C-alpha cells in the first residue's frame, strides 16, 4: 500500500489493516477473503465477481437461501445496481460497469465501503440470520406496515367496481380476523401452559422456563418428526425462522399477558436494521424444528461471527483510512449530468401516484380554506369595527392568537413525529416473570398493550370523525336533489 510505505508512523498500523479486513470478511456472510480486498484496491478483474456476489447478498431483501445461489451473475449485478441507485449511491461509475464481472472491482469496493459507512451492515446481516431460541414476538409495527406498502396490483385493469363486491370483501376480511383471534387465543393458552410446566428448569435464571423451540428440541433432538414431513433437515434453512410470530399483543386471555415480559435479546436495533424477510409461501415455519446438533452448529457459527464483528468494530478505523486512499486513486467524476441510469429491472408502481393524490387533496383543501377564511375575515372585520378598541380587547385578541397557535402547533407535531418515544424494534423473547427484575430494554407486556390500546383509541376516534363527516356530506348531497330519499345504512 503506497500510503503506508511512505509514512513511517503507519508501520504500527501495518499489522492492523490486514487484521481489520480479516475481521470484516469473517463477519460478513460468505465474505470474500482479505486477498480480494487487496486486489480490488488495484482494480484487478479477478476480484470483481466475488464483490458482486457479496454486494448482492448484502442488498438483497431476501434472507439467504438456496434460491439466491442459483441466480446468474449478470442478474445479481443488475439488481445490485438498482438497489444502490434507490439508496442514493452517488457514484455514477458503478451504473456503467459491465455486468459480466470483467472489471470494476475498485468501484465495487467503494460501493461496499459506502454501505458499511452508512449503517451497521455486519450487525444487520447477523440479525437477519439469527437463530431464535425463544418464543419471539415483535413489538413494533414496522414489518406489518412494510408488507402493506404499495399494494400488489392483483387486477391491473379493473374497471369500476360494484360497491357490493367491496362489502363482500370486507365481510370476508372480518371473518378471517375472527378466525385469527380465536387461533391466537388458543396459542396464548398453549404457550402459557408450556411456560408454566417448564418453569424452573432453564439454566439461565433470568429466563426461568423453556421456550417452545427449546422444549421441542428436547422432545425431539434428532428432528425426526417434522410437522411438514420434511424429514431430518440436515442443512438448517435459516431463511424463515422469523416467520414464526406467535402472538399479537393484547389478543387472548389477560392472564397470559399479565406476568409476561418481552426480553430484548438484540438491543440496539434500529428500524432499518431488522427487516422481516419476505416470506413467499410461509411454508417454511417448519424450520422451527431443529435437530439438536444442527442447532448447536448454527449457534456456534453465529458466535464466531459475533466475535468477528466485535473485532471489526475495534479495528475499523484503519480500514476507513485505507479506504480514503483507495478513493484517492480514483479519478474524480464529472458532476452528474442529466444521464440517469437507464435500467430499472422490476420497479413496482408506487410513489408518484400516491403523491399526486395527496397534492390534489391538499389543493382542494386550500381552495376551500381560502374561500372560507376570506369570507369570515370580511365578516369579522365588519363586526370588529363596530366594537370598541380597548386594551382588554387587544389582550383578548392576543390570548386567542396564542391559543390557536398552540393548538395548531400540536396538530403539526402529530404528523411530524414519525413514531412515539424511541420504540423498541425487532423481535423480543416472551418470558414469564413474576418479579420486577428486568434488563433496561425489557418491556412489560401489559404496558405495551396499554400503549397499543391508546393508539387504537386514537385511530378509532379518527375513524368515527371521518364517518360522521362522510355522513354529513352524503346527507348534504342527497338533500340537494329534490325528490331523493336518503336512507343511511345502520350505523355501527
Amino acid at each position, binding site marked *: 500500500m503506497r500510503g503506508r510505505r511512505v509514512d513511517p508512523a503507519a508501520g504500527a498500523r501495518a499489522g492492523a489493516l490486514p487484521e481489520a479486513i480479516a475481521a470484516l470478511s469473517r463477519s460478513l456472510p460468505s465474505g470474500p477473503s482479505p486477498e480480494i480486498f487487496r486486489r480490488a484496491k488495484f482494480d484487478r478483474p479477478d476480484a470483481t465477481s466475488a464483490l458482486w456476489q457479496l454486494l448482492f447478498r448484502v442488498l438483497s431483501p431476501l434472507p439467504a437461501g438456496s434460491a439466491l445461489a442459483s441466480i446468474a451473475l449478470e442478474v445479481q449485478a443488475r439488481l445490485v445496481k438498482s438497489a444502490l441507485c434507490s439508496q*442514493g449511491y452517488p457514484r455514477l461509475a458503478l451504473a456503467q460497469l459491465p455486468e459480466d464481472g470483467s472489471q470494476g472491482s475498485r468501484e465495487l469496493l467503494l460501493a461496499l465501503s459506502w454501505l458499511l459507512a452508512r449503517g451497521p451492515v455486519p450487525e444487520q446481516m447477523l440479525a437477519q440470520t439469527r437463530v431464535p431460541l425463544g418464543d419471539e414476538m415483535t413489538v413494533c409495527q414496522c414489518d406489518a406496515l412494510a408488507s402493506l406498502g404499495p399494494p400488489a396490483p392483483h387486477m391491473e385493469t379493473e374497471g369500476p367496481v360494484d360497491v357490493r363486491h367491496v362489502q363482500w370483501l370486507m365481510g370476508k376480511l372480518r371473518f378471517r380476523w375472527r378466525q*385469527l383471534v380465536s387461533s391466537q387465543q388458543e396459542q396464548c393458552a398453549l404457550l402459557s401452559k408450556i411456560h408454566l410446566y417448564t418453569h424452573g428448569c432453564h439454566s439461565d435464571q433470568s429466563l426461568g422456563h423453556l421456550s417452545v423451540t427449546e422444549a421441542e428440541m428436547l422432545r425431539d433432538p434428532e428432528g425426526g418428526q417434522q410437522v411438514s414431513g420434511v424429514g431430518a433437515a440436515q442443512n438448517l434453512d435459516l431463511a424463515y425462522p422469523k416467520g414464526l410470530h406467535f402472538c399479537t399483543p393484547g389478543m387472548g386471555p389477560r392472564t397470559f399477558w399479565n406476568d409476561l415480559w418481552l426480553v430484548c435479546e438484540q438491543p440496539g436495533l434500529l428500524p432499518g436494521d431488522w427487516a422481516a424477510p419476505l416470506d413467499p409461501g410461509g411454508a417454511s415455519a417448519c424450520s422451527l424444528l431443529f435437530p*439438536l446438533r444442527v442447532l448447536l452448529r448454527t449457534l456456534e457459527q453465529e458466535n464466531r461471527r459475533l466475535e468477528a464483528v*466485535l473485532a471489526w468494530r475495534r479495528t475499523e478505523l484503519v480500514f476507513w483510512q485505507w479506504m480514503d486512499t483507495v478513493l484517492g486513486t480514483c479519478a474524480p467524476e464529472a458532476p452528474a449530468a442529466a444521464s440517469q441510469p437507464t435500467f430499472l429491472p422490476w420497479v413496482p408502481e408506487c410513489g408518484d401516484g400516491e403523491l399526486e393524490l395527496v397534492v390534489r387533496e391538499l389543493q382542494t383543501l386550500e381552495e376551500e380554506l381560502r374561500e372560507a377564511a376570506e369570507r369570515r375575515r370580511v365578516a369579522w372585520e365588519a363586526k370588529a369595527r363596530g366594537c370598541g378598541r380597548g386594551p382588554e380587547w387587544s389582550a383578548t385578541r392576543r390570548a386567542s392568537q396564542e391559543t390557536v397557535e398552540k393548538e395548531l402547533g400540536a396538530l403539526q407535531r402529530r404528523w411530524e413525529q414519525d413514531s412515539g418515544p424511541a420504540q423498541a424494534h425487532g423481535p423480543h423473547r416472551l418470558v414469564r416473570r413474576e418479579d420486577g427484575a428486568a434488563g433496561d430494554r425489557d418491556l412489560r407486556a401489559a404496558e405495551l398493550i396499554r400503549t397499543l390500546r391508546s393508539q387504537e383509541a386514537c385511530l378509532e376516534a379518527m375513524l368515527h370523525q371521518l364517518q360522521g363527516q362522510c355522513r354529513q356530506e352524503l346527507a348534504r348531497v342527497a338533500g340537494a336533489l329534490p325528490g331523493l330519499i336518503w336512507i343511511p345504512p345502520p350505523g355501527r
Partner: protein
Amino acid sequence: MLPADCSRRLVAELQGALDACAQRQLQLEQSLRVCRRLLQAWEPTGTWAWEPPPEPETNEEDPLPACTPSPQDLKELEFLTQALEKAVRVRRGITKAGERNKAPSLKSGSFVTSPGTTASTPPQPPGQAGGHASDTRPTKGLRQTTVPAKGRPERWLPSGRDRTRVGIGARAPRPGAGLRNQHMAPSAAPQAPEAFTLKEKGHLLRLPAAFRKAASQNLRLWVQLSSLQTSDSMDAAAAKTQFLQNMQTASGGSQPRLSAAEVEAEARRLRKACSLLRLRVRKELSAAPVDWMQEYRCLLTLEGLQAMVGQCLQRLQELRAAPRSCRPWRPSSYEWPCWTSRSTWKRCFWKRRWGCNRGLQR
C-alpha cells in the same frame, strides 16, 4: 358503482389484507401444531441412537474421576435408596405394577447386571459399577417415581420411555451427582406405563450442556455488541462521515440525492398531515361560533390551517421536483414465485424489462 381509480385502490388494499391474514393464519396453525404436540405425551422416536450429546460427557462439576466414591457419597446413596424404596411402597399401593420392560434396546453404559441405561454414563470404571450393583438391585424394583418432586433438591429425569431426556437432562450440578445418576438410572429402568408429559415432569427437563454453553456465550456476545454500539468510537464515526463526504464530492454532487426510502417516509408524513388537516378543517367549518371570541378563534384557526396547507403543498412540490434516485427496490411478494425456476424467472424479467419502458426518471 364506484369510480375506477378509487375502487382499484380499495380492492387492492382489501386483497392485500386478506392475503396477510391468510399468511398469519398458516403460521399460527403451524405453531399451534407444534405446541399441541408438546403438550401431549412425548413419544420416543424409534430412530434414536441414544448416545451422549456431542460434548464429552465429563461433567465439569463432577468431581469424581475414576476413583472410588467417598464414604459421604455412599451414605447419601444409602439415604437415597431408602427414600426410593419408600416411594416404591407408596406407589405400589396406588398403582398396579406395570410390565417391566427388562430389555430396552439401548446401548447401556457400564452396567453388566442391569439392562437399564444410564443417562450420563460417565467414564467410570466398570469395577465401580459392579461394586455397587448389589446396592442397586433392591432399587431395581422401583417404578418410575416422582420422588424428585417429593422434595429431592436435585432434579434428575425419570428414564424409561423417554430415554433421551435422561441423556440430556442428567446434568445435576451437585458433587457426586454423576454417581447418583448412575445408580438412579437402573432403578428407573423398569418401564412404567406412563409416558412423559410436560405437565407432570416439565420442570425436570434440562437443556444439554453444550447447548447451554453456546446459548449463554451467544447472549453474552450480543450484549457486548450492543454496548459497543451505544458507546461508538468517535474516531471511527468521524472517519466514516469523512469518507462519505469524500465520496460525495468525488462524484461531483454537492448535495446527496434523496434516497427512495426518505422520499417515501416524507410522503407518508405528508399524507398523514393531509388527513389530519382535513379533519380539522371540517370540524372548524361545521362549528357554529356562539360569541365573537369563538368566531375570532375560528377565523384564526382557519387562517392558520390555510398557511399549514400551503406549506405542505410547497414541500410536496419540492419532493416531486427533486432529483430522486430510483424508486424503492422492493419486489413485491407475488413476483418471487418466478424465482423458483430460472426459465420462468428469465421470462418474467425480460417481459418486464422490455415490456414496460421505464428507463428514464420522470
